[in-house]
């Protein structure tokens, strides 16, 4: 192994924290959804990392292959990817609707309008 065995988890944590930072620190609603996307992909990466077996091949049965990677995390993540797109679509639809109601997609400006309006 060319790098320490926990390297993948570190990358996952870094990506996850970048996603979390985007969600917390940015006021723009589209940017928040992008942040959620970054976060989600990092979780997918975590699961796929767990499913990997050293020396294994993709879990498609064939003669002459002895070691397969674990198919279960792959299945779970397939479901998760589709669900993530569904949530993204719903979130973006809400953003469009908010923009129609408030003429802006910045959180602070919406807050101001709520207070004054």
């Amino acid at each position, binding site marked *: 192994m060319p790098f320490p*065995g926990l390297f993948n988890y*570190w990358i996952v944590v870094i990506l996850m924290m970048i996603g979390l930072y985007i969600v917390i*620190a940015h006021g723009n609603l589209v940017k928040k959804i992008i942040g959620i*996307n970054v976060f989600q992909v990092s979780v997918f990466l975590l699961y796929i990392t767990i499913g990997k077996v050293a020396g294994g091949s993709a*879990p498609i049965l064939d003669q002459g292959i002895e070691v397969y990677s674990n198919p279960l995390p792959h299945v779970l993540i397939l479901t998760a*990817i*589709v669900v*993530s797109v569904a949530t993204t679509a719903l979130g*973006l639809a809400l953003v469009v609707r908010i923009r129609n109601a408030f003429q802006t997609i910045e959180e602070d400006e919406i807050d101001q309008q709520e207070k004054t309006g």
Partner: protein
Amino acid sequence: MVVTALMLSRIRDLFAAAILCGIYSLLGATAYVVMDAVDVAFTEAAVGAGLSTVLMLGTLALTTDKEIITPREKRLPAILIVLFTGGVLFYGTSDMPHYGDPVAPVHNYVAPRYILKSDNEIGIPNVVTSVLASYRGYDTLGEVFVILTAAVGVISIIGRREGKAKTNKINRMSG
């Protein structure tokens, strides 16, 4: 991937951010191929990199593609929270099984059964497919319901606006 994610957090132009998000997903898909998850890579490349980007661009077309700069006082607590959570998670990774470890707990329960028996029981060479459609069929059914709910949600959120605009027009015309 880390670089793309960092760029995503810095960039102000939302159009570029949407494209970067697609690149990020595509890099993720490459990583999945390296880790033997070909089915997941397919889905991520098609859905994550393709569909999500299209959805985002569509939203940007309907809204605006510029972002105002985040005020500095808002950033500091965010950075603190993120550093703290990240530190805790880093500490947590020290207990994880190493990458590619064949005796990790995940590989001990149902996974060997799927690999050994699914050929006899289901007859599809791709284990991921047989697990998805048969052993965990209810999960997939639930997933379909999620998509349906999301579609209904999107239609009722955006569709209603057009309906209202139409009725407004009709009202104005009749009034």
